[in-house]
């Protein structure tokens, strides 16, 4: 079968669905747990058809995230490979003990006695009208928790590939999808070998500045790069994909050429994951930097529901482009 033959143009959420289907076929011990994932086909359709095909391996749970994340941990310790859906990133907060105090400790503290091949799927970010409790981007929190791999797919192919890599891994992994991208379409090759966890992707090479981004902001960064091109500025765009582990090599290679770094994410700026990348750059690549590193993120706010307010707060292609321009112009006072 040629590679082209299995490439389909599908939505991001459908790619997730295909990834889950792959997992249930590939691993007899794979289970899916979550709210409304079985009979109702998943609140966003990620599990569509899976209960029909795989029966009671797809389990509707009560609305008790601590219970079902914890149960998935226990089942994983006893040989299963559970995949858990937490409906919104914000809801991870009711299960943080299991996610932070339990899950990432088990392999290390048991000195390898137990493995927890558990994958958590969730989605985050703002969509028009989403309230303060349904809009947060919290990847930085999990990137600060050693013992969990954390990836944020920015397109349908990655939604499929990264999910499969996470599930195949014997380590706990958190896949943070983007609700705003669920309906977006792209080509997805279904029969691909598993990709290693932690590889970034250079979306676009460039000479003047390196823009690193992930999740929904990758599209904004690419749009910014296009605008900048028209102005004669050549911006490289890197989709980081994983915030744990980070592919420093791909960033370093681009930074070596451009000497300038801009990081863009939807999360609040302060102590966001952009801070980590900026810190890394100044720590490890100081002599490659021709000027200040810059971060683009939400201005440390709670998310209001009104779309007009939301838009004033969110990074965009334009605010990224503007930051790039300012960065390139930065000079000693």
């Amino acid at each position, binding site marked *: 079968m040629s590679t082209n033959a299995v490439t389909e143009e599908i939505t991001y959420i459908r790619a997730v669905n295909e990834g889950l289907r792959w997992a249930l076929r590939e691993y007899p011990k794979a289970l899916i747990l979550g*709210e*409304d994932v079985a*009979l*109702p086909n998943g*609140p966003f359709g990620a599990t569509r058809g899976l209960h029909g095909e795989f029966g009671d391996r797809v389990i*509707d*749970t*009560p*609305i*008790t995230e*601590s*219970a079902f994340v914890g149960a998935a941990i226990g089942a994983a310790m006893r040989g299963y490979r559970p995949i858990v859906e937490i409906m919104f990133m*914000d*809801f991870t*907060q*009711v299960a943080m003990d299991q996610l932070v105090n339990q899950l990432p400790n088990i392999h290390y503290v048991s000195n390898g006695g137990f493995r927890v091949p558990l994958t958590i799927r969730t989605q985050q970010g703002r*969509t*028009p*009208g*989403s*309230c*303060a*409790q*349904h809009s947060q981007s919290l990847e930085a929190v999990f990137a600060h928790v050693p013992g969990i791999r954390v990836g944020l797919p920015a397109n349908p192919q990655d939604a499929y590939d990264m999910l499969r890599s996470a599930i195949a891994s014997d380590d706990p992994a958190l896949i943070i999808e983007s609700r705003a991208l669920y309906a977006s379409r792209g080509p997805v090759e279904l029969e691909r070998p598993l990709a290693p966890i932690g590889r970034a992707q250079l979306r676009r090479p460039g000479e003047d500045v390196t823009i690193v981004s992930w999740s929904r902001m990758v599209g904004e960064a690419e749009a910014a790069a296009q605008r900048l091109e028209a102005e004669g500025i050549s911006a490289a765009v890197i989709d980081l994909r994983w915030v744990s582990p980070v592919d420093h090599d791909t960033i370093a290679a681009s930074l070596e050429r451009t000497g300038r770094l801009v990081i863009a994410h939807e999360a609040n700026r302060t102590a966001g994951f952009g801070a980590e990348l900026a810190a890394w750059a100044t720590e490890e690549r100081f002599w490659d930097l021709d000027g200040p590193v810059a971060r683009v993120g939400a*201005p*440390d*706010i*709670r998310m*209001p*529901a*009104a*779309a*007009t*307010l*939301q*838009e*004033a*707060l969110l990074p965009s292609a334009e605010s990224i482009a503007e930051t790039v321009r300012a960065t390139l112009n930065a000079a000693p006072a």
Partner: protein
Amino acid sequence: MDAPSLPETYRAILTIRRFEERLLSLHQEGLIQGSMHLCNGQEAIPVGACRELRADDALTATYRGHGWAIARGLPLPDLFAELMGRASPLCGGRGGSAYLCGAPYGFLGENSIVGAGVPIAAGAALAARRDGAGAVSLVSIGDGALNQGAVGEALNFAAALALPLVVVVENNIYSEMTPIKEMVAIDPLAQRAAGFGIPSVTVDGNDTAVVQAAVAEAVARARSGGGPTLVEAMTERLVGHYTGDAQQYRPAGEVEAAKTREPLTRLRAAAGQELGAELAVVDEEVEATIESAVQEAMGYPRPDPAGAALGVYVD
């Protein structure tokens, strides 16, 4: 209190119903963005319960809280404006459908995290008890919410401290798209309360008077230092879990059957010919009220984007 007349009750319920229906059309017109959780069919619960509340009582609801806000007396124009993302006096557009509040009305707000309002409401009950004026704290949650850890913790907290808390469980038989009966091993849900040492009752949630009577007893217990009560009110959603829910998970005929049991149908039947004409007048008046509220709401300005980042801190 005198028992409210049938047309009065009808007006209260219809106002909420028409509010929700109007939201849907505003949503379709693109004047409201994002999903909403409507309470069509469940209105008798907030209407009955709020009749027992005093101005100094605290009320906490869920994302399915428009009915509670209205029953609590939050102005319709303000509510419409808030949901339209306008600079309403409630939250200035920051709350939206699922997370609005109204400080001047003793409305601690909706909550869009399942179950999270109950600990907060327990705290309002603690405040009420310390204030010593006999105020209570009432919180509504869904059937599914009862399983959340925070709810169990708060029930125990309120029981152990004998706080003046009334927990109203609106059992609409579904938690999102999953039937609650598959998610618990108890029936009725009110049985959960006994495990915390909390008295409880299961009542018909589609009858305002029945709800009111149950809440009256709970409130009386709370005001007199008798501690918390759980009231389970049985009801049914006539619409999807949220705007956009196609309800494929509901068995054929379920919604139709529910429509024969819902509060407005019942009140119309009970009204008979005698009061029928009066209700028709109420229909028109409510219609007018709703429309004028929408118009008034449209008059509120959009919130100033320049202020979007302000107010995260007091200082």
